[in-house]
């Protein structure tokens, strides 16, 4: 009987070793260890043995049974691992195929510039003011020290609206409106559309965006104006930029300055973008003219202040090297999707 069991074990192990299918293994389990399996059959015939032999054979039979069972399980594991491996191999993909697109809208480049500047000024403690596009002569000119028939009015070709109104030519009226309603210290910026008589072409537009700033307090100086504007310029255009201040003229500031930044295209060498000067004009600024302070009811002996204004369209064109100003107004998706 022992011999028989040994033979069965031999047979079973051989068959298990040769099996490559999980189904086959299940069949082998039934064949050898099932209710009517071969090993079970041998065990069942143990009743025919003399009682003293039974424990020995019984023990041996169990050993055989366990052995087969163990081999079956081991083989099963092996096969499962193999199968999984094969399946995964089959699932390999071409990872160079494009990924799934996320559809997301874009912000207008003008908005990007506005956001960047607003964030910067908010960090410096500025508040954001607003003012109307349709203005009176007083706020747009008179209160800014630009009287009727002053040649400075030629600097800004104005659209007039029926009924003694005009479209603001700059955001500077917001300075006046702020000074009228708020006592110093004042620290504000304002962003908005401005209008000047110009045909829309590659370099001109009748409408443009301006950011204006105003700071008024005790002891504000030209040095502070420089400090703030250098910080702003470097934030927008990069730390490596040179910034240049030169005298200019605005009736509402004195001293006045024009601020240039070294050309990004040629790094100051001189190219077509900067008209071979190496510099790009980006903003106008100055110390608030004492007359303007007085007109708005602020004591010009006690307080000083600075103001600045920058054309955001030009800023965006410089920053992103946009070649035609009309792109900012066409809303061409091929343009908008690049920002």
């Amino acid at each position: 009987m022992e011999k028989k069991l040994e033979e069965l074990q031999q047979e079973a192990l051989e068959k298990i070793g040769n099996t490559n299918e999980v189904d086959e293994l299940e069949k082998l389990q039934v064949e050898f260890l099932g209710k009517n399996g071969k090993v079970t059959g041998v065990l069942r015939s143990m009743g025919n043995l003399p009682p003293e032999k039974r424990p020995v054979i019984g023990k041996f039979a169990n050993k055989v049974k366990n052995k087969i069972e163990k081999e079956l399980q081991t083989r099963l594991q092996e096969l499962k691992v193999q199968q999984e491996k094969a399946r995964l191999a089959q699932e390999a993909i071409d990872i160079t195929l494009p990924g799934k697109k996320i559809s997301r809208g874009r912000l207008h480049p003008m908005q990007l510039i506005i956001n960047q500047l607003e964030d910067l000024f908010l960090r410096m403690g500025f508040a954001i003011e607003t003012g109307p596009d349709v203005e009176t002569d007083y706020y747009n000119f008179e209160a800014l020290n630009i009287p009727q028939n002053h040649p400075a009015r030629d600097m800004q070709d104005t659209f007039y609206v029926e009924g003694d109104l005009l479209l603001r030519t700059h955001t500077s009226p917001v300075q006046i409106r702020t000074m009228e309603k708020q006592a110093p210290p004042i620290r504000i910026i304002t962003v908005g559309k401005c209008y000047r008589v110009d045909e829309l072409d590659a370099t001109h537009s009748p409408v443009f965006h301006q950011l204006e700033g105003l700071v008024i307090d005790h002891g504000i100086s030209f040095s502070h104006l420089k400090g703030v504007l250098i910080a702003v310029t470097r934030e927008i255009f990069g730390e490596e930029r040179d910034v240049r201040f030169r005298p200019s003229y605005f009736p509402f500031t004195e001293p006045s300055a024009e601020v240039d930044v070294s050309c990004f295209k040629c790094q100051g060498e001189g190219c077509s973008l900067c008209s071979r000067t190496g510099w790009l004009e980006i903003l106008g600024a100055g110390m608030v003219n004492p007359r303007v302070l007085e007109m708005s009811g602020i004591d010009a002996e006690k307080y000083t202040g600075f103001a600045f204004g920058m054309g955001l369209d030009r800023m965006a064109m410089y920053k992103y090297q946009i070649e035609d100003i009309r792109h900012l107004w066409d809303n061409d998706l091929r343009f908008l999707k690049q920002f």
Partner: protein
Amino acid sequence: MRVSYNWLKEYINLDLSPEEIAEKLTLLGLEVDYIEDWSYLYKDLLIGKVKKIKPHPRADKLTLVDVEAGEKSFRVVCGAPNVKKGQKVVLAPAGTTLPDGMELKNTKIRGEISEGMICSADELKLQEERSEGIFVLDEDAVPGEKFAPYFNLDDHIFVLDLTPNYGYALNMLGVARELSAAFDREINYPHIKEEKESGRAEDLISVEVTDSKLCPRYTARIVEGVNVDESPWWIKIRLMAAGIRPVNNIADITNYVMLEMGQPLHAFDYDKIQDKIIKVRPAKRGEKLVTLDDRERELSDQDLVIADAKKPLGLAGVMGGLESEISSKTNNILLEAACFNPYNIRRTAKKFILHSPSSHRFERGIDIENITRASRRAAQLMAEIAGGEVIGGIVDIYPKLKEPVRLRVRPQRVNEVLGTDISRMEMKSILEKLHFKVQDSKRMEGAFRVQVPSFRNDIKIEADLIEEVARIYGYGEIRGSLPRMDMEIGRRKPTQKIEEKIREIFQRAGLHQTINLPLVRKDEGFYNTEGLPLTLTNPISVDNSCLRQEILPGLLRSLEFNTKRQEKSAGLYELGDVFPGNGPGQRSRLAVVLMGATEGESWQADAPDFFALKGILETLGFEMGVGISLERSELEFLHPGRQGEIFLNGKKAGFIGELHSGLQEDYRFPSRVAVMEMEMEPLVEEATLEPDYRGVPRYPATSRDLALTIKEEIPSVQIESLIKKEGGPFLETVTLFDLYRGAQIPDNCKSLAYRMVFRSKERTLTDEEIDRTVEGIIKKAQKEFNADVRK
């Protein structure tokens, strides 16, 4: 203002390159726009001498000319009738470039090689009209040498873009003065002979000024026996460098002196002056004058004229009259040098759109104390160049002498305003270099009392002098620093935060931000009820003549722009201002257009764009904590069955719908377009941007699906509110997930399927109680809407 560097060197020589001068001028505030390099334009031209002329063998009108230029000789085919042996001419050898940019090559003309070209005056850009023959030089020209230095064309022109405060720098001496202050160098003033200012002049002319406010000073001088002719080239070239066309020697000299000294001058033909009297008076209403540009002007009593006994001779300070113009027959000159009121000049020049170099200078203010000097300078040049005789004396009407402006300057204040530490002595020295007279103030210790020179009309207050100090000290020398201010938190206003949030939501929804011109056509707009638009009195075009009252038309134009460029789908929005016509106050509005939205797989398939847009609107509402509802509307430009009014928490805000098929066709949109526009105000009022946290549920939810078949005309929202009403306290959400028509559904009916989610905060709900609730809903739906339950 165009400044010739060669001319400038006559007054101040700095031995600096044109680029260095340009940079200094710019840093002084006299911005150099660009430099015109004439030396480059004329670099290739040589002086030649005509050695030999032979007829061209195959052309009657052409000759073969041998031109000698130094060692070399050139054979040139020439067509000019005036070429003669021995002439000194300007030669452009082959392989070089002419001033107008044309490249010359070795060419064969009728079989004969031409090795260059003999230039005419217009080819040299010395005159505008075509000249008949070649340009012939004087005897002293040396063959073989370069033409440019000989003719003073080896020049650089600084093209200045001067702001209105630099009136005093609109002349060569003014620019030289700035450089002299910056580099601390002396100026060589032009030599003007002293003359006795008395003589016969007063017998020859009398002058009347009716209003000294309009004409604070008027002088007249007489030059007799001039020979009116072309100016010598040195004058013509300087005028051309300045951008002024040479006319004749008399007119040219008046312009020359204006460019040199800044004083506009006018020369009248003395013999045409009726009764030998000059009246400076306002024009009579309806009076007419033909100006030098040959146009008749109708004058008003606001225009100041220079008149004789009978009629106006010229528009004071703006432009002379044609009749009293200098002509070749003119013998005697009345030379006017005056000062006119800037504002009055400006008004007249603007009214007639007559912006002249003279009005430009008067508008910015001239040096009233320099008038007689300038007049003398011009008269002397006329004598010298046009052979006239200056009559002694000058008629000078200057009733109220101009008081010099005196200002107090506090050095401490200068440093406070600039944030600098400039010494008192340095300030004094800077101001003195700029010709200010500086003394110690007697009234205030430490302060200066500064007298402003008469040419500086722009200096009126202390701040102006602070700028002068800063300009010469150098803006670049002032150190930048950050102001020390009280701590303050910069923040956006609620409106600005909401706008920012909208942009963020729309960006996630795949909409692109646009910005459209607020200037539009008069009749643009779909539904406006706010009166006629605000209209510009001076628009650039009909298409941009009014302020917009709606956002949508511009947005549709942008969509059209893109569909014309083959875009099949697009989602665009604009958040911008509109301007009501019948009242003050611009307001913000939000508009969206959506075309070709992806077809959803659910019930939305039959109107993808409408529901896609509605979905975006609902998302906006959800994110802002605002309830969105729609009510049917009847706007004509929208699809009659696919439109509605938008309500935000019950407040009317705008509309949403599909564009009417007719309009869709007009715009040639390839597919349906969903649009919406709404006011920002109700949104700003209702929005809450803070999240509304309600805890995490501790008990599981149970869901039930319910499909109801109802009549087509019953809106879904009614079923939804019925479910909400009957769903009891545990109903958490109701969502429509299917809309079905077709097999098994009767005609004129639809099946709506809702998923309901129930949950309690305190316990796990039992199936039985939920089933009971659903039963209740069904019963109510059957009763109210005759609904059938679809299994």
